């Protein structure tokens, strides 16, 4: 019943544009509506001598980011979920910040902070340029951009498992460490696996960071090859689409692996009235734990923002951090052009909210179908909702244009703001789907059965029983979607309806004209304004007395 509602919407939203990506890979002239010379470009693209190196590099990058992100974010998430961490609400907000910074700005921020004669060297006399422009530098920056995905999934999950199992273990005489290894960690598996899958997908399709940092060390990945095919005339749409299909295949392997891990066991832990969840005290560990949170928060949020703020507050880049070079000119110019800037902010915030609401509802329904139905068709649906996250945004954008600019369509959102809503929903649907999927795996079917026996219909069960239980996870995912949609650039550049201004476009155009300072000033404003929503949610959640 829900399947019947979800399937057509997903078909329009995701399958339709992605079908055109595949068609474009096979038929070079599909853009003109001609199905001639199928596969004619395969040889050229697939026998490119770089292809194997690019593919291996892609796997290495994705694998390393997954590894480092899990080492950082899983402990953070578990600590946050199990213990009363000082300033807990603050950390939740701080860890959302990396999502409000567009990756290309974060990368530029790190470059300007760490390169020789960058801000760090100007202040302390040392630079880490050698590290930043290396493979591990790319992994470092990328991990800081994506680790919150794992942190939020794990912390929400751990807190919903709650203390009952650990309580029981303690009563049975199990030492705390063992109960952690034997109970908490295994039960958190769905959340860890789901969020690491997202991280993997994000790190194999993200272009900004490898382009800014890795290209000069000669470390090229598939996305670099895709971007090259779309960056100069003559462009090569079939080649770019075909390389994207390779990314999808890689992601499919990761998806199957993840599916094996979470299907091996039953993770249903919420099978009755949720007990009052008392977080444990940290005791002597308070200081080291707070330090751990603070260091990661500083690296992930404060450092890049500081660099952005410094660039925005100096008159010229070459003037550096000299007293006579500080000025508020860039901010003043943003205010002088407040018409354009405010319009862009308004558009971006509305798009972010719209995408968050639509993907939240759709993602939850999709996950419900996938977790409860366990049929082949629902498995296909599940992978379908991961696919957009494995294809570079620019290629998804090409697919959307090919799909929605067909002359035979009676109505089309193309060249209206609607196409951006479609694009963001398509690109960001994976977040709520993965989060809801992991959360639903913990909710016992017996709860639904009980409600049905008591005479509640399907929709009532969904909204009265399931939603309250999984809502913290969904809300966290929706906040991530909101933050990303409010600053999306890669697909937006190509898809933006004529005359539309979004924040990311505004910033990018400043950069492109060489007004880096002004672009950075706009970024500061955008980050500050975007963050008001998560902060408001965090305050509201505190009043409710639960994790958002």
């Amino acid at each position, binding site marked *: 019943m829900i399947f019947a509602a979800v399937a057509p919407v997903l078909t329009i939203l995701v399958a339709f544009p992605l079908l055109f990506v595949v068609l474009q890979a096979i038929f070079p002239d599909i853009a003109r509506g001609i199905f001639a010379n199928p596969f004619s470009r395969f040889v050229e693209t697939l026998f490119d001598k770089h292809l194997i190196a690019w593919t291996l590099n892609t796997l290495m990058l994705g694998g390393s980011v997954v590894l480092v992100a899990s080492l950082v974010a899983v402990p953070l998430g578990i600590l946050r979920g199990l213990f009363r961490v000082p300033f807990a609400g603050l950390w939740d907000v701080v860890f959302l910040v990396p999502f409000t910074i567009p990756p290309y700005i974060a990368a530029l921020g790190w470059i300007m902070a760490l390169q020789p004669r960058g801000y760090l060297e100007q202040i302390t006399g040392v630079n880490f340029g050698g590290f930043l422009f290396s493979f591990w530098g790319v992994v470092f920056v990328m991990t800081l951009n994506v680790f919150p995905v794992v942190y939020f999934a794990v912390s929400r999950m751990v807190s919903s498992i709650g203390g009952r199992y650990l309580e029981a273990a303690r009563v049975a005489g199990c030492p705390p460490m063992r109960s952690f290894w034997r109970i908490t960690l295994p039960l958190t598996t769905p959340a860890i696996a789901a969020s690491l899958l997202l991280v993997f997908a994000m790190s194999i399709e993200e272009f900004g960071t490898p382009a800014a940092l890795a290209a000069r060390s000669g470390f090229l990945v598939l996305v670099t090859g895709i971007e090259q095919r779309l960056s100069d005339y003559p462009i090569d749409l079939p080649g770019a689409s075909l390389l994207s299909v390779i990314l999808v295949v890689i992601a499919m392997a990761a998806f199957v692996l993840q599916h094996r891990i979470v299907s091996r066991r039953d993770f249903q832990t919420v099978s009755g009235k949720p007990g009052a969840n008392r977080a444990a005290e940290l005791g002597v560990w308070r200081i080291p734990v707070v330090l751990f949170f603070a260091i990661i928060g500083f690296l992930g949020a404060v450092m890049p923002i500081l660099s952005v703020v410094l660039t925005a507050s100096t008159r010229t880049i070459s003037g550096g951090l000299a007293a006579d070079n500080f000025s508020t000119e860039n901010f003043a110019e943003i205010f002088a052009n407040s018409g354009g800037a405010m319009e862009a902010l308004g558009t971006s915030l509305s798009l972010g909210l719209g995408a968050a609401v*639509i993907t939240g509802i759709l993602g939850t329904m999709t996950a419900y179908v996938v977790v409860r139905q366990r049929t082949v068709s629902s498995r296909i649906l599940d992978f379908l909702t991961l696919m957009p996250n494995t294809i570079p945004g620019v290629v998804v954008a090409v697919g959307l244009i090919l799909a929605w600019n067909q002359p035979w369509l009676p109505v089309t959102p193309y060249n209206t703001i609607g196409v951006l809503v479609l694009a963001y929903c398509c690109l960001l649907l994976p977040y709520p789907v993965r989060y809801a999927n992991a959360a639903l795996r913990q909710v016992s079917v017996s709860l639904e059965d009980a409600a049905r026996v008591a005479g509640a219909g399907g929709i009532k069960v969904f909204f009265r029983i399931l939603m309250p239980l999984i809502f913290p996870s969904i809300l966290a995912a929706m906040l991530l979607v909101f933050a990303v949609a409010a600053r999306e650039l890669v697909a937006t550049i190509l898809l933006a309806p004529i005359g539309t201004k979004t924040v990311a476009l505004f910033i990018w155009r400043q950069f492109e004209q060489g007004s880096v300072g002004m672009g950075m000033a706009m970024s500061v404003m955008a980050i500050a304004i975007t963050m008001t929503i998560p902060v408001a949610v965090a305050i509201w959640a505190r009043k409710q007395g639960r994790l958002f």
Partner: protein
Amino acid sequence: MKSLKTVLLAGFACLALTGNAMAQSVTVYTAGPGGLIEKLAAGFKDETGIDVNVFQATTGKVMARLEAESANPVADVVISASWKTATSFAKKDMLLDYTSANAKTVPDFLKGPGYVAQGISALAIAWNPKSGTPKPADWSDLTKAEYKDLITMPDPAQSGSAYELLAALTAQPDLGWKLFEGLAANKMIVPGANAQALNPVLQGAKAVVFGAVDYIGLSQAAKGESIEVIFPKSGTVIAPRPMMILKTSSHQNEAKKFIDYVLSDAGQAMVAKTQLMPARSDVKADRPLIADLKILEVDPKTDRKAVLDRFAKTFGME
């Protein structure tokens, strides 16, 4: 659940209805600089009352969008930063043959059947005087030891003009690939597109850009950045920015008027203000013009892929 679908469909229908273009308008797809097209659009609207709908991105993205839209074209006028887009569109018979009355003083090599230059940029050396290195005068100076570890270059695989420079210089008998092998020995880095090559030089991590886009460097210098644009003695390549009207345009009269406006005195003055060379030879600008530069040609028979491959090999970017 049914109702949700209805709401979504109704929403899309509303959005689609608002997308109808105004009667008197022209749609322009343009590569940067963004500030220029905004000024041109405003001036054109004041003079003719015709709205200009702008899509602005990099040349590659403009071409990708045009290509993806080809089943149902939207653009009337295309302005790109790469001359060969115009010649190849003309070959494919995609352009409306139009010669503006204002194009009389545009040199012959900057116009063709259906296309004409808006303005011209050249590639140059962009050098940071605060870097403590001697001021370079020619490309080959950068192979000297003083510049070791201090040079950047835009990636010719991503920037059309950087490729042209590479193709032109490697074809010079006295320079050839030896020049680039010297630069590789000097640890020149190739960090990406134009902006990524300039940023390290502004901040002082590097000292000099090999093949910077001149107008960007000149406007940075005008803003007070410590950067000097040097046109090398042995010559450089220019990148004229072609304007063209697509045959598929349903606003051909408005499109023609727009081309006329860009080539008018007012339009060319705006072009000059962005530090680009104006296309018309009778318009003055406060910067070196084509007549002041030694221009190198690129042999049209050059094998682009072979050149790019050899470049990547030379700089260990394989």
